[in-house]
């Protein structure tokens, strides 16, 4: 077993930013484990621009954003092992890793940061009737095929789901010469960023049908077409069916944090985010195990991933260097109507002067509201928001000082006004 202070599982933007921050906070012995042959995670296939506006005040492509962090990691001499897949994480932080040259080995670091990212919701979960012919891909798989392997999955395409990956792929397929006939979205609003609707659909006259879904899949060996219908109250409306001939169906139906390892270690997971339940130190229910990035909750902006991961890196450093192993009393952060979740879900009451960053998502589209945080009965923060949407994560920064003593919970409310 090798001696190591901090192991980071995943070499995507979260893992890299966490590594940099932990090193800057003084942790010497850091190892980043990445199962792919390159660092950078999902960014390697996100070749469009739109990354890093907050961090670098510049619009970078995914690979360019990743490269900045890779060079920081290399510059700081942080050890990274690619082609290394973590097979198991135990509750005592023992990791089992497999690597083509080193075989199977174990590590027992003082702290672990989970940065495994997320994966796409598989089609099985979507319950579309019809056969299962070839030609049906998740949008992210199609993105990998086109942008990494240089292969076009098909010529005539329908996209189900208007999350950002679906929108980005509508443009990508169009630029590669395919015809994207329609993007169908089950919800009455798009899950993607408005700018992507403009740049990826409107620029190329690709229709977006809200409150529509695929009700039938045609073709036995290869997909020949799909039937799309309008949806009301969760049910397809008879008589609204429309047939679209196509050889490819891309599914962009959401991402799920990848938490098999966390589950194995006994980390408590949230049923809402599908990621670990964490406190304001981004520490999970297993002491010394921290989480950041898409493994914690799905992010739409990589800048926030980097910020969150840097905080996890600093906190892990504090855990290691100050041997702060006792968490102390914690209070829950609860959500009022309209708010789906917050991360963190718990706050430590320990007196420290650190600020707390709450990230949250709402459950629908709202205009002219306030996001208010109550500590007991006293508001500690109240911010106006012109527009809120489920596709856009909100951030509230609380300064730690004014939190009254003796409170039992922090409650986040979405209020009129």
């Amino acid at each position, binding site marked *: 077993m090798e001696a190591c202070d901090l192991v980071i599982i995943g070499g995507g933007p979260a893992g890299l930013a966490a590594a940099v921050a932990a090193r800057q906070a003084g942790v010497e012995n850091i190892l980043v484990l990445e199962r792919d042959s390159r660092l950078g995670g999902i960014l390697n296939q996100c*070749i469009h621009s739109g990354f890093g506006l907050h961090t670098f005040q510049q619009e970078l492509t995914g690979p360019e954003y990743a*490269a900045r962090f890779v060079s920081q990691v290399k510059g700081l001499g942080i050890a990274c092992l690619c082609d290394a897949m973590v097979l198991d994480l135990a509750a005592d932080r023992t990791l089992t890793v497999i690597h083509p040259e080193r075989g199977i080995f174990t590590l027992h670091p003082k702290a672990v940061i989970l940065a495994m990212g997320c994966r796409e919701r598989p089609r099985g979960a979507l319950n579309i009737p019809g056969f299962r012919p070839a030609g049906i891909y998740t949008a992210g798989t199609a993105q990998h095929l086109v942008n990494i392997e240089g292969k076009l999955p098909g010529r005539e395409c329908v996209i189900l789901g208007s999350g950002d990956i679906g929108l980005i792929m509508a443009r*990508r397929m169009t630029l590669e010469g395919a015809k994207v006939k329609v993007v169908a979205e089950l919800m009455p609003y798009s899950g993607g*960023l*408005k*700018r992507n609707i403009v740049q990826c659909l409107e620029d190329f006259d690709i229709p977006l049908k809200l409150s529509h879904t695929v009700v039938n899949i045609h073709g036995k060996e290869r997909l020949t077409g799909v039937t799309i219908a309008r949806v009301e109250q969760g049910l397809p409306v008879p008589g609204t069916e429309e047939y679209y001939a196509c050889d490819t169906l891309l599914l962009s139906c959401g991402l799920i944090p990848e938490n098999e390892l966390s589950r194995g270690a006994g980390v408590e997971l949230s049923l809402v985010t599908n990621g670990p339940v964490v406190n304001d130190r981004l520490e999970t229910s297993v002491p010394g195990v921290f989480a950041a990035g898409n493994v914690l909750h799905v992010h739409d902006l990589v800048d926030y991933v980097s910020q969150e991961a840097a905080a996890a890196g600093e906190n892990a450093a504090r855990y290691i260097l100050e041997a702060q192993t006792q968490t102390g009393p914690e209070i829950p952060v609860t959500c009022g109507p309209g708010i789906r979740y917050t991360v963190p879900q718990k706050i430590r009451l320990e007196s420290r002067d650190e600020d707390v960053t709450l990230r949250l998502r709402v459950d629908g589209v709202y205009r002219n509201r306030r996001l208010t945080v109550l500590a007991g009965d006293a508001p500690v923060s109240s911010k106006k928001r012109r527009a809120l949407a489920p596709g856009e994560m909100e951030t509230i920064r609380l300064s730690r000082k004014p939190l009254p003593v003796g409170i039992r919970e922090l409650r986040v409310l979405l209020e009129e006004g």
Partner: protein
Amino acid sequence: MERKLICIGCPLGCELTAQVEGGEVREVTGNTCPNGERYARKELTNPTRILTTTVRVRGGTLPVVSVKTAGDIPKGKLLACAAALKDVEIPAPMAPGQVVVPDILGTGVDLVATKSVERA
């Protein structure tokens, strides 16, 4: 005439309203920052975009390299530029920032690599 548009300058996606008279943009409202006004003026007179796509690589560790236009190109030329790259193949190695196609389709803008591809 009033024109409504969404700023694509950043993920906030501000909803802009522009007063247009005789092909000239008079007033822009709804923007959170100055980029929004700049965007509305440009979008209504000479809309431009960055093109991001891939180009085939010969003898590299990856079959394609990701590329972008080093600056904005006219929106109407996006598809033509992408089509013009279909038969382009460049030899590895490739470094980010390296020019792949100079002055693509006479736009005056270079197409550059956005990732490194090593020789296989």
